[in-house]
């Protein structure tokens, strides 16, 4: 790669810099313009007028974690598929279309197997996941 190619990355850094600058600029302006009359009641977490009981940082359901796990696996699969997808047309033009198709489809079919398994075992259900998996895990 020549240095000129790296200039293609410059706008990303610049735009990120603009975002950070805009954030702190807006913060600075609001520090100057906004009134400051702090009170204890004002800075309690909003709970429709009730006194908040306890912290909001409590144990969360495991289903969020399961969604995260499944997501990462699909994410990695899509990352692996992207380079092959990008040259798929090129391979087809070179006359290797059938070969590329077999490779690509066999990769995807394993992915489908995974989602079919999770579906049939009820891991994709949001509400019933506990009862269903209890039944299936006997």
């Amino acid at each position, binding site marked *: *790669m020549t240095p000129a190619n790296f200039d293609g990355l410059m706008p990303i850094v610049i735009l990120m810099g603009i975002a950070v600058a805009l954030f702190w600029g807006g913060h600075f302006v609001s520090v100057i313009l906004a009134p400051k009359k702090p009170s204890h009641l004002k800075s309690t977490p909003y709970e429709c007028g009730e006194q908040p009981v306890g912290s909001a940082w409590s144990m969360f359901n495991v289903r969020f974690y399961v969604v*995260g796990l499944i997501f990462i696996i699909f994410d990695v699969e899509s990352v*692996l598929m992207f380079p092959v997808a990008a040259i798929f047309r090129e391979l087809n033009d070179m006359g290797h279309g059938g070969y590329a198709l077999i490779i690509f489809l066999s990769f995807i079919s394993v992915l489908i197997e995974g989602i079919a398994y999770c579906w049939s075992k009820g891991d994709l259900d949001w509400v019933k996941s506990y009862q269903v998996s209890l039944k299936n895990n006997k």
Partner: protein
Amino acid sequence: MFLQILFALSALLTVGGAICVLLTKNLMHSCIFLLASLIGIAGLYATLGADFVAVAQIMIYVGGVVILMLFAVMLTGGKDFVSRAQNLLGLAPTMGNMWTYGAGLLVGLVFLLTNFKLLSSVLNSHPTRTFTNEFPSTVNRLGHLLVKDHVLAFEISSVLLLGALVGAAIIARPRKQ
């Protein structure tokens, strides 16, 4: 010039984030510093001309792994995530027994030697940054390698991921006592 600035920024983010991960006592904050470190690593990949790997790093680590870590932290709940340990040294004896320390030492030793080996091979060779212009971009290069030379690895990785998916689903499933 821009390359140097990008490298400096990325290196600062990577090292600074990693140090902050170690120093902070708040679990949530250390996840976020880890995020900074991972973004910095993506920047380092970009300075090496590996644009696809850089973006994949952002996609998997920033978009996936860090969020998963945050979810995992939220699983534990607890009153607060701030560790009450005063100093690391006072806590160290309670963190494991003879076996775990021995295993840790061994792993560290192997890791160190591997790194030295890698470093020496890098230092001894003379890297020439000439890319053959056979492919217009790194993506095409990667794609051709995945389809031709490493097609078995490509297919087996899908099976590996299937295993990971099934394993993740089974582990996260509540079991009957």
